[in-house]
Structures are given as structure tokens and as C-alpha cells.
């Protein structure tokens, strides 16, 4: 469920989304003169900057990817290639084998001597 309706404008009337764009994207303030002297805007900006600094901390957190991923991926690819080759090989042979069996069966049915 969306919580967006739970974000009212600040008491001074400034919409929070304008301040979010300012902090997150470095957008210019819509009303710099008002903002400079407004304690509500200043307090909200300070809170937003704190939140975005947390996001920055999370982004900088060290993540290590398991090295086994390389081997697992390449193993799956090699098996897929091998399976494709086997299918290609037997895919080519099976119809011929099938035709040979059908032909042989037909000859036997018609009583053609070997």
C-alpha cells in the first residue's frame, strides 16, 4: 500500500518532493529566498540529507561476490554446449536410424528375403 498520502506538505506549504529532488539530484531550490529563511525547510532538508547520507553509506558498504560464481556459470555453459552438440549429433543420426528401421520393417513385412 502506498504511503505517499502520508507525506503532507511542510507547515510553510513547501512540498517535500521538491526538497527530495534537491537533496537527491542536486536540483536547484524552487524558492531559494524562502528556503534560506524558513526553519521548516531547513529542518526538512537536514533530515533528508541525513537519510541520503545513510543511502551513501549503504552504497559504499563492501560487498564481496562469491568467486565460485565464475566456475558455476562456466560449468553450466559448458554442459549446455555439450548437450547441444550431443543433441546435434544424435538429432542428425536419429532420423536416419528411424528411416532405416522403418525401411527394414517394411521390407520384412513385405516378405522381402534378406
Amino acid at each position, binding site marked *: 500500500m502506498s504511503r505517499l498520502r502520508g*507525506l503532507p506538505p511542510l507547515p510553510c506549504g513547501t512540498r517535500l518532493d521538491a526538497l527530495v529532488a534537491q537533496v537527491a539530484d542536486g536540483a536547484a531550490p524552487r524558492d531559494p529566498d524562502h528556503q534560506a529563511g524558513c526553519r521548516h525547510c531547513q529542518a526538512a532538508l537536514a533530515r533528508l540529507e541525513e537519510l541520503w547520507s*545513510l543511502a551513501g553509506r549503504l*552504497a559504499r558498504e563492501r560487498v564481496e*561476490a562469491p568467486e565460485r560464481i565464475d566456475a558455476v*556459470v*562456466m560449468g553450466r555453459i559448458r554442459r549446455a554446449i555439450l548437450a547441444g552438440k550431443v543433441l546435434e549429433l544424435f538429432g542428425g543420426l536419429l532420423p536416419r536410424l528411424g528411416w532405416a528401421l522403418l525401411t527394414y520393417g517394411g521390407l520384412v513385412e513385405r516378405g522381402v528375403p534378406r
Partner: protein
Amino acid sequence: MVAPTDADLVSRAQAGRLDAFEELVRRHRLGAYRVALRMLGDDSDAEDATQDAFVQAWRKLDGFRADAAFSTWMYRIVTNRCLNMLRARRRTEPLPTDREAPASRPDRIAEGRWQVEDLQRAIGRLTPEQRAPLVLRELEGLSYEEIAGALELSIPAVKSRLHRARLELLAAMRPWT
């Protein structure tokens, strides 16, 4: 000796050179895994998603156009894989009732760590469609153009989803902001 570029490696891999693709996996493993981990919030699922994404990349390699960056293409594949996994398990993630009182975690308060964990949980409660642009933008630092390429969306659509995601995050984090 100059290391081959991603484009060189892609050309060689498209010609059937497995060693070239293996080098691409090695180069992009961390980026793909990091996105998967931040999208899915679980080490094991992130590993599975990363593996699946690279295998899928190999299968689709012939269709890869050289005018795009391999990294952006991988972001697209891994993000799509994560979105599919998230849709499959939608509504089954734990609710935020597991949030401990800060007083019970003095070690983490000292580090401010609990706030980062709250943020991680709040990101995990975003819809998959909101989470993807937020992770790519705020945590991976991609440009709007790169995100649009990775998510196959227009730039205005990316901005719109990101905006809603940011506001959702702000609403979720208000108790302590």
C-alpha cells in the same frame, strides 16, 4: 600488454571463445551480484540470480549490439531476473516487525549501523518496480540514461518511478528522521 576492452571480449565470445566470456563474467561478477543482493536482500538468492543472469547472457550474446555497454546490458539481465524472482515471492517477505528497539543493540547504535539496516529493510519493502530504479540510482550510481537502458523504460518513466520510490522510502524512514 593492454587488457582487452569489454567490446573486444564480447566479439571474441560471440565467435565462440569461452575464455573471453569467462573474463567478462570475472569482470562483471561483483556488479551483477551487488545489484542482485540489493534487489533481493538474500545472499543465496543473489548468487542464484547472478549465475542465471550470466548463463542467460551467454545464450543471448548473439543478439547483443556493440553500441551498448556490456555492463548496462548485464544490469538489464540481472535486474530482470531479480524482478521475476521478486514477483514470484511477492508478499512473502517478512514484515518490519523484526525491528528491534535500538536500546537492545548498543553495539550497532555505536556504529549507527541500525539506521543503515532500517534503510535496507525499507528498500526491501518497496515494490519491485520501485526498488529497481532506486537500487540502480542511489546504490549503484547509474545515470538516468543507463537506468532507462537497463530497465527498458523511457527516462521520464524512470524519473517517475524513482520519485515515487524516494517518497515511499522517506515515508518509511520518518520515525527516526
